[in-house]
């Protein structure tokens, strides 16, 4: 279908044909362009996955076995980490969408000016170094001198101030709040991009049909942004699963492992306790968990789309 040939150039003699003039690169030349990216991918992404799989089953003086998986399954901290990782994904994404989507709708459809300002100010937390944020929020949560304590004091509740990061029941959620604070602006921006790319005619047609206000948002805008929802949910899942600096610097996975996630547990077992084989096993579980969660999310999204009348249209042709 194209003039791609083994030679170096496609001959200009074919100009009179309706067939397009193509860049005449040989397959060897074409692959040379692919190589740098593919090489880095193989080295730092595919190889690590395979190396983890092998390290999780291999034993220095014995045949490969699933002994380490059995060890993980009987390790209560491992299950705390699995549970917390799932909590991280579900709570982060639910809050980021619940906060990000309405704010994006307000920015794009409810105000006449100042859009760029709001988008930028809301996005700023996203660009601040997570290890910096971890220390700032540790101070905000600190008993006796933190900002939150100051707020409790002002409300006359100083005596009932909880040990936010020191209480096993709160620690995970207190760190998730920080993650949500940081990532909401990203959700806002991506929803703004999604709304701006929608076909304005469909939105207008819907409002002529009587869909205004909340009804228009719920029955027209929300379903039309399906591909934005899916991208954000998938991105948010991986982001929540790989969150490390906030947890490591705010709670170290504590108190008593209560806020451990798979990411922090991999670090603790692999680097602090020097149990590389076990850490690789946890890493395989994390990898599988991310695939399972994304597959479930796609299944839910597909199912959900089948029952909606409108598919998303792209405003601007690519």
């Amino acid at each position, binding site marked *: 279908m194209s003039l791609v040939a083994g030679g170096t150039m496609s001959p200009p003699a074919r100009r009179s044909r309706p067939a397009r003039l193509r860049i005449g690169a040989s397959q060897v030349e074409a692959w040379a362009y692919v190589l740098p990216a593919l090489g880095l991918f193989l080295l730092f992404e595919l190889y690590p996955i395979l190396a983890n799989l092998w390290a999780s089953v291999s034993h220095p003086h014995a045949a490969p076995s699933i002994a380490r998986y059995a060890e993980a399954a009987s390790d209560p901290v491992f299950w705390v980490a699995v549970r917390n990782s799932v909590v991280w994904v579900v709570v982060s994404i639910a809050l980021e969408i619940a906060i990000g989507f309405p704010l994006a709708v307000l920015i794009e459809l409810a105000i006449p000016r100042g859009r760029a300002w709001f988008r930028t100010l809301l996005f700023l937390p996203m660009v*601040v170094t997570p290890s910096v944020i971890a220390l700032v929020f540790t101070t905000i949560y600190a008993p006796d001198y933190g900002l939150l304590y100051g707020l409790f004091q002002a409300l006359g509740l100083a005596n009932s101030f909880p040990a936010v990061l020191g209480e096993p029941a709160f620690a995970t959620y207190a760190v998730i709040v920080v993650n949500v604070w940081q990532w909401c602006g990203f959700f806002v921006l991506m929803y703004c991009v999604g709304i701006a790319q929608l076909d304005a005619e469909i939105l207008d047609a819907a409002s002529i049909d009587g869909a205004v206000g909340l009804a228009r948002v719920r029955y027209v805008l929300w379903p039309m942004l399906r591909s934005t929802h899916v991208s954000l949910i998938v991105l948010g899942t991986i982001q929540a699963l790989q969150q490390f600096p906030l947890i490591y610097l705010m709670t170290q996975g504590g108190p008593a492992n209560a806020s451990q996630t798979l990411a922090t547990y991999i*670090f603790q077992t692999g680097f602090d306790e020097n149990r590389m084989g076990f850490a690789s096993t946890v890493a395989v579980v994390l990898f599988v968990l991310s695939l399972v969660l994304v597959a479930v999310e796609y299944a839910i999204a597909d199912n959900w789309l089948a029952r909606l009348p409108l598919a998303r249209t792209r405003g601007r042709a690519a």
Partner: protein
Amino acid sequence: MTHAGSRAPSRMLIAYAVLAGACAISLLPTIYMIDISLRNSADSFAPVLIAGHPTLRNYAAVLSHARFLRFFLNSALIAALTVLATLVCVTSLAYALSRLKVRGGAIVLLVIMSALLLPLASLLIPITVLLRTLHLTNSYLGLVGPETSLGIAFGTVIVKGAMDGVPLELEEAALLDGASSLAVLLRVMAPLCRPALLVVAVWQFLFSWNEFFLALVIMSRNAMKTLPLAPLFFEGPYMANPGKLFAILTLIGVVPMLFYAVLQRWFVSGLMDGGVKG
């Protein structure tokens, strides 16, 4: 026009109020951080947002700290090299997939995209072992390599989307002049895709500047540490001196904030025009 007359202005006011409140929450921790960095030691543990009596003494102290400046330099170099390497890898891959009809290109794209589903923690141990074997721990390349590879999937989505949108006519003129494939890439495609390349550059700079997990395990020598490790490094020594610690935090955080504030207009318009699928 479609709004019901008198209700529209009040609705707009509510929208502004909600957005202003959201912005306040999003900026509050940063304001608090900056204020603590400006406090003298008497006020540094006051549980308030703004303590008053600002002083720049903390900044004078930390800016003359040689170790901190070294961290700064390391971060800047690694971020610059990562952005450069990512742009080269992503642009050439996107070009090959969009224009050169690589045999098996669809599979390559699928495989590269699958990296979007890999949490970094699941790759960390083998990457560290590999870099130790290659003697690349405590070296700039040891961070630039993995950070670049982690940016390729996202970058390729953006740049390939932009390249697919460039009309074929534009490169035909260059081809008629006998341009090679590399000349078409450098003279036609790359300049036309500048907005998309800027999106990738901004994203990769922020990622590299802020990256903590890889740096923590790969840069164990103090001379090679990057800024995200600085809070951990100075937390102990400045325990009783939050003003100085927060001056360091502010200096680290203000760079990406200014960087984004300056480039946000092009970043956002690049996202809106580009081939971002949501």
